[in-house]
C-alpha cells in the first residue's frame, strides 16, 4: 500500500478525471441503448470506475493493458480517445478497429490497449506474452490484465499465474472482484473464501484491496507496477468492487439480494471519491469544471459515433491475413 500522502492533487484530479469520464460515458451509453439509438450488448462498468481510474493512473501511457468485454472503464481510463472508442462501439468504420471488433474486442496500441477478449480468462495468457516481450526487450513496460472474480475459476487463470511467477514476468493480474459472474455469486462458484487465497499456490506476490477506494487501489497498483518494472516479477491484485447494472444491460439483478445492492449503492465510489477530494480542499469549482469538460467530450464522442459511417463491406477481405484476400 503506497502512502496516501504521496498522492498529490494533480494525481488525485487525474484519477477523478479518468473515473468521471467512465462514469459519464457509461451513463450516456446506457441512455442511448435504452432509448434505442444504439443497439449493442452492453456490459456496464458502473460501480467499477474508481478501480479502473486509480489502476490506470499508476501506469505509464505506453504500458500494456489487456481487458475483457466489461472493459470500457479500463479502456477509457487507459486513455483511448473517446470518439474512436465510441465509434467502435457503434460499429463504425472510423472506430478503433474499423468496426470489425466491436465493444468486446477493443484494441488501441497507441494507448497500450492490446487485446480486449470476450472469452473469460483468456486475456491472462496473452498478457504474459506481452510482458515476456518487455522482459526480453528490456523496454521497461509493464502489462496489466483485468478480469473478473468468476474468471479465477477457469484453467487459463491457473496456468497464467504460474507461468508469470516462474518467469518473473512484469505483469500485474487485476481481478476486479465484483462478487458475481453473470448471475452466480462467488460463494457458489468458488471453493476458497477469498480469491487471494489462490496466490500461495503460485508463489506470486499478492494483495487484496478495496478497489472502490481510490487511495488504496492506487497504492496497490503503484506498488505492483513498480515491483514489476524493477524486474521483481508479477503481482496478483484482488480488488473488491461491485457492478450496479448486473451482467448485461437489461439484467434485472434478481439474483442479488436487495440489501446487498442497497449497501453497494450507498457506498457508490463516484460520490465517495468526490467527497474525499472536497475533504482534501479541492474545490467544487475545480471538480465541476472537469465534469463539464468531460460532458462535452462524451457528448461530442457519442454524436461523432452516431453520425459516422459504417465500414465499406470490402473491409471483410482485409485483415484476415496480412495480404487482402480475393473477393
Amino acid at each position, binding site marked *: 500500500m503506497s502512502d496516501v500522502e504521496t498522492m498529490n492533487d494533480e494525481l488525485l484530479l487525474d484519477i477523478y478525471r479518468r473515473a468521471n469520464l467512465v462514469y459519464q460515458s457509461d451513463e450516456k451509453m446506457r441512455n442511448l441503448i435504452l432509448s434505442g439509438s444504439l*443497439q*449493442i*450488448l452492453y456490459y456496464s462498468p458502473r460501480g467499477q470506475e474508481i478501480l479502473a481510474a486509480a489502476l490506470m493512473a499508476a501506469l505509464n501511457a505506453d504500458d500494456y493493458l489487456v481487458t475483457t468485454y466489461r472493459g470500457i472503464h479500463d479502456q477509457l481510463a487507459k486513455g483511448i480517445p473517446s470518439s474512436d472508442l465510441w465509434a467502435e462501439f457503434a*460499429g*463504425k*468504420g472510423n472506430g478503433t*478497429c*474499423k*468496426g*470489425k*471488433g*466491436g*465493444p*468486446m*474486442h477493443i484494441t488501441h496500441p497507441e494507448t497500450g490497449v492490446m487485446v480486449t*477478449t*470476450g*472469452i*473469460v*480468462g483468456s486475456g491472462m495468457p496473452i498478457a504474459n506474452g506481452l510482458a515476456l516481450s518487455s522482459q526480453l526487450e528490456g523496454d521497461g513496460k509493464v502489462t496489466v490484465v483485468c478480469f473478473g472474480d*468468476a*474468471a479465477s*475459476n*477457469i*484453467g*487459463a487463470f491457473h496456468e497464467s499465474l504460474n507461468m508469470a511467477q516462474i518467469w518473473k514476468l512484469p505483469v500485474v493480474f487485476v481481478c476486479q472482484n465484483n462478487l458475481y*459472474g*453473470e*448471475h*452466480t455469486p462467488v460463494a*457458489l*462458484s*468458488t471453493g476458497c473464501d477469498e480469491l487471494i487465497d489462490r496466490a500461495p499456490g503460485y508463489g506470486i506476490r499478492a494483495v487484496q484491496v478495496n478497489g472502490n477506494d481510490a487511495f488504496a487501489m492506487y497504492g496497490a497498483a503503484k506498488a505492483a507496477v513498480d515491483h514489476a518494472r524493477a524486474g521483481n516479477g508479477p503481482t496478483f491484485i484482488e480488488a473488491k468492487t461491485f457492478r450496479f447494472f448486473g451482467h448485461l444491460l437489461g439484467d434485472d439483478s*434478481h*439474483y442479488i439480494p436487495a440489501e446487498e445492492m442497497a449497501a453497494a449503492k450507498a457506498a457508490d465510489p463516484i460520490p465517495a471519491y468526490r467527497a474525499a477530494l472536497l475533504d482534501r480542499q479541492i474545490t467544487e469549482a475545480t471538480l465541476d469544471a472537469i465534469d463539464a469538460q468531460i460532458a462535452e467530450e462524451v457528448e461530442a464522442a457519442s454524436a461523432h459515433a452516431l453520425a459516422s459511417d*459504417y*465500414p465499406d*463491406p470490402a*473491409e*471483410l*477481405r482485409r485483415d*484476415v491475413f496480412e495480404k487482402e*484476400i480475393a473477393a
Partner: protein
Amino acid sequence: MSEQAVKQPPAMTFGQAINMAMDEAMALDRRVIMMGEDIADDQGGGVFGATKGLSAKYGVDRVRTTPISEQAIVGAAVGAALAGYRPVAEIMLMNFVTVAMDQIVNHAAKLRFMSGGQTSVPLTIRTATGAGVGFGGQHSDMLEAWFAHVPGLKVATASNPADAKGLLLSCILDNDPCIFIENSASYGVSGPAAEPGARVPLGKAAVAREGEDVTVIGYGPPIAHALAVAEEMQADGISVEVLDLRTIAPFDVEGVLASVRKTRRAVVVHEAVRAFGVGAEVSSVIHENLFDDLKAPVQRVGSAFAPVPFSPVLEQAFLYQRQDIADAVLKAVKH
C-alpha cells in the same frame, strides 16, 4: 372463423421446444442431469432461458449451476456418463467449446472405442451460436465441421422447433456423445408444436419440400431461407426440393443421394464459412456417387472467409444470404 381458430395447430418457440425436450427427458429418466453456467432458476435458467423451471421441478442436484470452468463441466459430464448417467452439458456459446475440446475429442468421442466397448459416454452437449446478432468475432462461430470430422461424435441441429424438440430428446437418450447446436437468434422463433414424447431419429434427413429440378441441402436456419427461395423459384417454373439434414454427422448419405439421384442437381448451404465446411463433405459424397447423373456441379453456399465482424454492415456481408442460395440454384439449373 372461430372453428378455424380452434383448428390452428398449436405453436411453440425453439426456446420452448428445447426446454420441453429436457423436461421430458428428465421426467423419463432420473439419470438425466444438467450442468452449465447459470442454468438453475436462481441464476435465471440459463442465459437464453433454455433450462428455466427445470431446477425448480427436478432440484438443483440434477440441474447444476457450475463455475466458469468448461473443461470441468464437460469432464464431469463425461465421468457421470461413464457411470450410466445421461448428462446434458450446456456450453453457453459454441466459441467456448474451444477450451473444452480435449474432453470432447480425446475423451467423450473415444472412450467407447478405446475401452473396447466396455464403457460408453451417453452425453449431450448443447451449445448456441450463429452470426447476425451483433455478438462479434468470439461469440458467433459455426464449428460443426470440427465435430463432424471426429469419429465417435454425433452432431445435430434443427431448422424448426418441433425438430429441435425431437432431435434433442433423441440426443439425450442416445448412447453416444452428441453435440446439439442451437441458434442464438432463434430461441424466440416459433413453429408448429411437437407431439409430447415425439422423437426425431438421429441420422435421418427430412424432405422439407419436394421438388424435381434441384435439391437444396442444409440444416438449421438456412432451411427457412431455402424454402423461401423454393417458393419464389416455383413462379419461374423451377421446382426445388429442400432437404434438411437435421443430423450433420454422421449424415444421411442415403437420403441425400436419393434426392439428388432424382433432381440431378444439388446446392449445399450452411452458415459456417464455406472453406473446409460441412458442405465440402456433402458435395464430395454426391459427386463421388452420382458423377454420371449430375447435370451440374454441386454448388456450395456458406459465409465469407473471415472472422465474424461486429459491425452490422460487415456482418451481413459476411453471412450467407438468401440471394446466394437463389443464385446457386440458378447456377445449377442453368449449367
